[in-house]
Every structure is written in C-alpha cells, then in structure tokens.
C-alpha cells in the first residue's frame, strides 16, 4: 500500500488475490459477506414490521372480516353442507388463511419498490454484495412476515369449529410456508419489473384478486360451470389453497383432474417448484436492472 494508507485500519475490501490461498480466503470472505447480508436484509424487514404496527393490524383486519362477517352471513344462505361435510365457516377458514398469506406475501414485495423510490435500494446496490443476496434476503423477510400473520390467524380455528391436532398443525404450517414462499417469489418478480408505487398497487389488484377468487379459497370448486372449472384448474394458487385446506380438514375432497384426485405431496412439490422457478426468475431480472 502507498504511504497515504499507512496507519489506517485495514479494509476488509479484499484486494485482488495474488495466490491460491489468497483466492480461497477472498472467496470465503465474499461468501461470509453475502451470507450476513441475507440475514441483515431479512432482519430489516422484521424490524420495519415491528415499527409499523398499523401494517400488522390492517393485515389481520381483512381476513377477520371475511371469516366472521362473510362467513357467518353467506354461511346462512348455504343450506347444504359443502363437499366433505363441513359448514361454510369451517370450509372458509383455510381459504382465509391462504388469502391472508397470498396478500401479505405479494405485498411484501412492495418493499423493493419502496426502497427504490426512497433511495435505500441504491445504498444496497452499490455495496460489494451480490444482488442475489438482496433478493433472497427480501424474499425470506417477506415470507416470514406473511407466515407470522398467517399463524396469528390460527387462533381463530376453534372459534369457527376447526379442530387442530398437532399433526394437522404441523401440516398446516408447512403448507403455509410453501404458499408464502411461492407468493413472495411471485411478488419479487413483479417488483423487479415495476418502477412506481401506483402501478404496483394496480397490478396487484388486477392479479391478486382474480387469483384468490379463482383458487377455491372462498367457494368449493366442485360442480362449477365448465369455463370456471377450467380456469380454476389452470390457476397454480388452486393447488396451494387445496393443500392448506386438506392439512386442516383431512376429509375435504382434493382437486380432481379428470377424475384423479391430486395427492397432497404432488401439490406440495408443485408449489415448491413454481416458487423456486419464480425466485430464480426474480434473481435474474433483478440482476439485470441497472
């Protein structure tokens, strides 16, 4: 180093490696830095959630309104039990959990648009860390926030008459995690393409609402008119919602494709695969933005 840097603390800014050992140490340092960055980005999302309690409240208000008001009101109109022998509110419960996860996972991606609009994104982009770490940290953070909100709603289960055993609870948490994973990734993909806050909300409404309503979250998919049945079967969210429902209501009939009931493990794999593909796409798109 030249004279001007003498006496200053050494930087961790790894200099160009000169030897093989140096190269290994350099790679190690880069890995550590990226790993810690993922953790930090994740932690930041949680800190921000904790500091804006209104977000938690609004995130819970909508599903609770749907579950209790719509559930009670519409349930009274529905004379016969829904397939599987449940009353409407029981049927609706896993649907509302899914809806809550979908909404908050998709909207968690807003933080990317938000960071871009308020400049913090530049602070992250100019740092010597890979963009992949930033996206992964964001996705983890968004997923965690969504799952936490979903878990809070679980306390409503006994009120609407859904019995939760330890086994069912375990299955439920796993399916909620999968759903949150896929939806956060989907949100990330959209966030990388959308520059402004307003357009994000518009796209969300146009994409999110149809996706929720056509997924079997609020009404059973059996005995639908053909056109509607085709659309619901093409909607990937259908399989995720079905997975959540069958975790807590084992007697519920699963989605059928040409008379074949799709097994839960296949649904889980499908959601996992779609989520992974979307996350990979998000990383790619994000790395390309200038």
């Amino acid at each position, binding site marked *: 180093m030249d004279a*001007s840097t003498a006496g200053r603390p050494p930087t*961790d800014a790894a200099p*160009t490696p000169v030897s093989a050992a140096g190269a290994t140490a350099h790679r190690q340092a880069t890995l550590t830095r990226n790993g810690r960055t993922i953790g930090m980005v994740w932690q930041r999302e949680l800190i921000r959630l904790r500091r804006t309690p209104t977000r938690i409240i609004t995130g819970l208000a909508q599903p609770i309104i749907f579950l209790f008001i719509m559930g009670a009101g519409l349930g009274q109109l529905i004379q016969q039990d829904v397939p599987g022998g449940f009353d409407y509110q029981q049927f609706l419960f896993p649907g509302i959990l899914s809806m809550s996860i979908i909404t908050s996972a998709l909207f968690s991606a807003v933080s990317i648009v938000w960071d871009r609009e308020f*400049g913090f994104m530049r602070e992250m982009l100019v740092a010597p860390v890979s963009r992949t770490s930033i996206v992964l940290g964001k996705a983890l953070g968004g997923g965690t926030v969504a799952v936490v909100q979903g878990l809070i709603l679980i306390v409503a289960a006994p009120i609407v008459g859904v019995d939760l055993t330890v086994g069912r609870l375990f299955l439920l948490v796993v399916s909620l995690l999968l759903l949150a994973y896929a939806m956060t990734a989907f949100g990330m993909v959209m966030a990388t393409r959308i520059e402004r806050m307003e357009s994000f909300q518009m796209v969300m409404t146009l994409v999110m609402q149809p996706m929720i309503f056509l997924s079997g979250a609020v009404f059973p998919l059996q005995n639908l008119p053909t056109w509607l049945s085709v659309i619901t079967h093409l909607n990937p969210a259908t399989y995720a919602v079905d997975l959540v429902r069958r975790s807590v209501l084992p007697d519920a009939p699963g989605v059928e494709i040409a008379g074949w009931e799709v097994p839960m493990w296949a649904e889980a794999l499908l959601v996992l695969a779609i989520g992974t593909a979307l996350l990979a796409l998000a990383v790619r798109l994000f790395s390309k933005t*200038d």
Partner: protein
Amino acid sequence: MTDAAPAPAVEVEHLVKRFGDFTAVDDVSFTVAPGELFGFLGPNGAGKTTTISMLCTLLSASAGRASVAGHDITTQRDEVRASIGLVFQELTLDDYLTADENLRFHAVMYGVPRSELAARIAPLLEMVGLTERKGQQVRFFSGGMKRRLEIARGLIHAPRVLFLDEPTIGLDPQTRAHIWDYVDELRRRESTTMFLTTHYMDEAERCDRIAIIDQGRIVAIDTPDALKAAVGADAVTFATADDARAARQLSEAFGVEVVGQNGGLVVRVPDGEGFVPSAFGVLSVGVQSVSVRRPSLDDVFIKYTGRAIRDAEAGAGDQFKMNPMVRGFRRG
C-alpha cells in the same frame, strides 16, 4: 505494493457515457492523487453525477476506462465497491431504522467483522455529533443530521476514496458550514481521498484541485488559485457621469480594454487597487463609484464556458424539480 510512486486514487481516461443520442459525459480524463480533496464544479446536468455513478460502478461506461483505488471499474466491480464510500445526492437512509442500525446494516454489507462493529461505529458517531441520537429512528432527524449520518456511514468500512455527490444540496447555510467542518476534520484525521461534486463556488474553493465540467466535458482543471490566476486580472468597475468619454480616456491612457457591463465600465488589470488612483488622474468626468473585485471561480467559469453558472443552471432547473428524491430531501 511494489510501486514506488503512489498510485493515483482515481484515474480516468477518455471516459464517455451516452444515453441514446445524448452524450452525458464526453471524453473525460483526469487523475486524483491519494489524500487529495478533488472537486467537480459545474451546473446541474453537466455530467457530474453521471461520472460519479460510473466511477462507483452504478452505471457502465460507453467508452474509455477508469480505475478507482487501483481497480478497474469495468472488470473489478466488487473490488472498486469495497474500496469506496459513497454519499449520494439524495438521501439513502432507512427512515425506520435507528442511526445505529443504519450504520450496522452498511458495515455488514461491506464485510466489517462483527467484533469490530462497535469500535468502528462509536468514533464516527462521535465525529458527526450523533452519539446521543444513535438509538433514535432516522425519520426523526433533520436534513443536516441525516446527511452527517450518511457521511459517517460512508466511512465505516475505511474506504480509500470517499465520493460525495452534492453533499450539501438543499441544506441551509449553517448546516452546510457544519458539514464542511466535518469534512475538514475528516481530512485531518483520516487523510481519506475525497471526490466531491458541487455547484457552489465557495465549496469548490475548499478543494485542492477542481475540474470545471460543462455539458459533459472538462473545460479546465487545476487548483482554485491557479484557475483564478489564469483569468488574470482584477475587475475594476467604474460608474461615471459619461461612460463613453471615460471609456475613451481610460483606453487611451492605459491601453486597456474597457467593457460596458451591468450599467458600468469594467477594466481588467493585474493590480486593481493600484490602478484606481492612476485612473482618477486621467479621468475628466465625474465618477460616482468604483469597485475592485478579485477574480472568482465564477469568472473562471464564465471564461471557459461563456456564461455564468447560474445561467447554465436555469436551463437544467426543471430536471431538478422532477427528481422526487431531492424534493423529499428538501422538505426534510
């Protein structure tokens, strides 16, 4: 490590940035020595931020090459990023994090070991006078405090070069003076190379060397004193009862060029104060006022670009207003 002469902190050769048909940075070359305080002076839209963005690897260059702290900005992006600190023109803090959390976040991304975190953060907070506020969320900070925190943040990883893009934009004069105190203090203590952009003349005056940039080109580069000396002369301005006659008498007696400007006569001479008494000796018209002014960087700017920096800015003003970052920042 093996070089005898200190390598330049920043070395730029024929750097170009085009956006479509528009050339924002047009064949720019310069070097910055280690420890130097180097300034880019120019109106908004001159290409200052674009140049900094390329040097910080946020934008890719269209042509030419540059290195920062010895690392090539195109082929060694990560090494460049690790060796620089950057204070953006717009604020880039997370308002919902505390001052301390913002600094920690930054330190983690730059690979500062966990064990050193506290030892690095404390003296920096002390230097920018924010020790008492470290646990407070940044949204409760004033614009000046935020800026100071950003300067501290840019230094946590002990960068070789600190880039400051319009560090005092939108701040009131008192806060601006404060920021400069910190910059001076920093230079004394850390001898960090600093590269700043500004469109304020008084800030450019403080630099070791400045490059005047206009419409994407460097039109002059030197120490502020040398640049002013190159303009040459003091400007002596006369307001007289009969400007035409006075102009004739002055040019006949001293052989100088007399220019009518701002309703007065301006004569450029090496020694303005010595010139005034001799001028009175030859003038037979009533003189209402005389003023002598040393050349300023404004004059330098006019000399090289043909217009004042304020006029150059008038055209670029709209762009400035459109930038939501700046708007938000000014409100704060």
